């Protein structure tokens, strides 16, 4: 039913790639077993910095998951025909990203065997409860949409009429998953780095930059390794979305800088000072944050100038810089910056340990595995359809 038979035939390159992912997963799984036995003390986390690499990856990937809407919305609401062929790729990317999000939350939990307590004892006043609801719902939505669409495509028919409202529902739902994730942080009175109304808009802007950037890169890769071509119009439209989203994201960031530093309030300033200049002699993230700034600046130049954006090679570079700039921003800076300095004014350093990095890599590998398998299925379906038409 899920057309998985299409995923078990492939070229040597395909199996080598899957083998590599399996190896990364195996190493990470061993490290996770160790973490399960010993406790989260195996990570670099501490009494003062209680969320780190795992939760940061979760936050970044919710953004990537939400960005599927940037393909679905133009196609279904505004008839942007160019996106017709790649909505399925966006939906599979969303499934893969949401799965990674849930895995990152799972590996971060102190008592993961009790995870169902969140469902057994629903707590509507807790944003984490709503996060689970929205992520679970989004996963379900995208799974249904992708399955129904791909099955219809394979049969050569139109998808059933009832799928249209489901697809339309996924659009506000995508916005909601990242808004709820931002709410996890932006409602905490003790963490002034996160206690800003612009956090949710910033999350959405960076999501709509990093997600489509990744999607462009994936389309380029797919074009190399299969006969599927997303089309220049689609990639260029996506590139335009990335451009505007990145401009808005950088603008929002500059707004935060102004409020923090012009007001001069220490509680607001100090987190930025820690991240970008170092505080009380501690500056572990300074080179990373400035790298993120540099990458963002370069990406803006490469994206805004039409001659660069139209060139596919430069576009690849632009997408890479956008992705890594935002990965550092959200995947490193956001979480640690929120915890340092601590509510008691101390500066504590955090750096992930080797097992922590291995587990993180394994979760990413699971995501890429899911993505590879699903893309293989989708592309195989399309290739066999194309072959059939050629024969006819």
């Amino acid at each position, binding site marked *: 039913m899920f057309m998985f038979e299409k995923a078990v035939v492939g070229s040597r390159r395909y199996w080598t790639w899957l083998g590599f992912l399996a190896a990364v997963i195996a190493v990470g799984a061993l490290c996770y077993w160790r973490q399960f036995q010993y406790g989260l003390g195996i990570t670099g986390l501490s009494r003062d910095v209680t969320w780190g690499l795992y939760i940061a990856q979760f936050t970044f990937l919710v953004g990537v998951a939400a960005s599927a809407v940037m393909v679905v919305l133009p196609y279904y609401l505004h008839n942007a025909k160019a996106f017709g062929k790649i909505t399925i790729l966006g939906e599979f990317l969303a499934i893969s990203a949401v799965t990674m999000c849930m895995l990152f939350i799972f590996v971060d939990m102190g008592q993961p065997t009790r995870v169902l307590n969140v469902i057994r004892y629903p707590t509507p006043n807790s944003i984490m409860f709503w996060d689970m609801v929205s992520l679970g719902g989004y996963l379900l939505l995208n799974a249904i949409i992708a399955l129904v669409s791909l099955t219809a495509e394979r049969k050569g028919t139109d998808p059933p009429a009832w799928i249209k409202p489901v697809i339309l529902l996924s659009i506000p739902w995508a916005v909601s998953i990242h808004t709820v994730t931002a709410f996890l942080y932006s409602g905490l009175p003790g*963490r002034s780095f996160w206690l800003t109304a612009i956090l949710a808009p910033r999350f959405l802007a960076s999501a709509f930059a990093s997600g489509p950037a990744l999607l462009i890169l994936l389309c380029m890769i797919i074009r190399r390794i299969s006969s599927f071509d997303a089309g220049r119009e689609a990639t260029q439209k996506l590139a335009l979305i990335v451009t505007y989203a990145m401009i808005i994201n950088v603008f929002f960031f500059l707004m935060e800088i102004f409020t923090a530093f012009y007001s001069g309030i220490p509680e607001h300033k100090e987190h930025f000072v820690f991240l970008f200049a170092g505080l009380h002699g501690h500056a572990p993230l300074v080179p990373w944050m400035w790298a993120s700034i540099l990458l963002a600046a370069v990406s803006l130049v490469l994206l805004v100038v039409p001659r660069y954006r139209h060139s596919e090679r430069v576009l690849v570079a632009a997408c890479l810089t956008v992705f890594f700039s935002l990965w550092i921003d959200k995947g490193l800076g956001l979480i640690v910056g929120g915890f340092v300095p601590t509510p008691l004014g101390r500066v504590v350093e955090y750096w992930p340990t080797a097992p922590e990095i291995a587990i993180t890599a394994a979760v990413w590998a699971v995501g890429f595995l899911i993505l590879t398998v699903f893309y293989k299925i989708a592309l195989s379906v399309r290739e066999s359809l194309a072959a059939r038409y050629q024969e006819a």
Partner: protein
Amino acid sequence: MSTNRRGFLGVAGGCALALAGKAAVEALSGGRPSATSTSRWAMVIDLAKCLKEQGCRKCVEACHRAHNVPTLPDPRHEVKWIWKESFEGAFPSEGGEHVREELRGSPVLVFCNHCDQPPCVRVCPTQATWKRAEDGVVMMDWHRCIGCRYCIAACPYGSRSFNWVDPRPYVSPLNAEYPTRTKGVVEKCTFCEERLERSQPPACVEACPAKALVFGDLRDPNSEVRRLLRTRYTIRRKPELGTLPQIYYIVA
């Protein structure tokens, strides 16, 4: 009976909806039998009295010993329910360049404030922590905690500790009457609720040689805490955040 796929999915969806509805009704109606509020525990700490006992740690030892709080070698994994924080750390909005000499850097006893509007309770996804209606204690249920550490992120005072490793090897001496915790759960001061239940004051209050800790019921207008709050000026930690902490400090 014969059914098609559509019919089956419809019935299954209806059942799921009914189950979800039941859970929702239970959740929204509170789920716990409501207890009437009979007392409101609070504490008044006289910093001057505490300062007189230089280097004293009797309250910390009494608390940690009674509750099997572990002593971990790695400072990153430290677990503490009560400790002495610097004046500037406990009260970031006080102090400054010209603060009184004896207060500068002086130790202030800090622990869970058992806030009236606790952000930690607001964020807990499983109600593993909650504010008791009958006496205002912010409680912990270590059977339910999933170790997500959202409460630690929410607490503006750093009152909570997470068990990064199994604490048992580091509990010495063990008080067998009180449980330890296990790895992967968050813990904090519970106002000695197990002693309150036996009508005993908290361990720290009992252990203080200077009688600097005064514990009592805010509902009782004749209690010592009410008398102190009426006659002395007190400050609380970060009152501007709206948490309504119930630990009051006499500074002067």
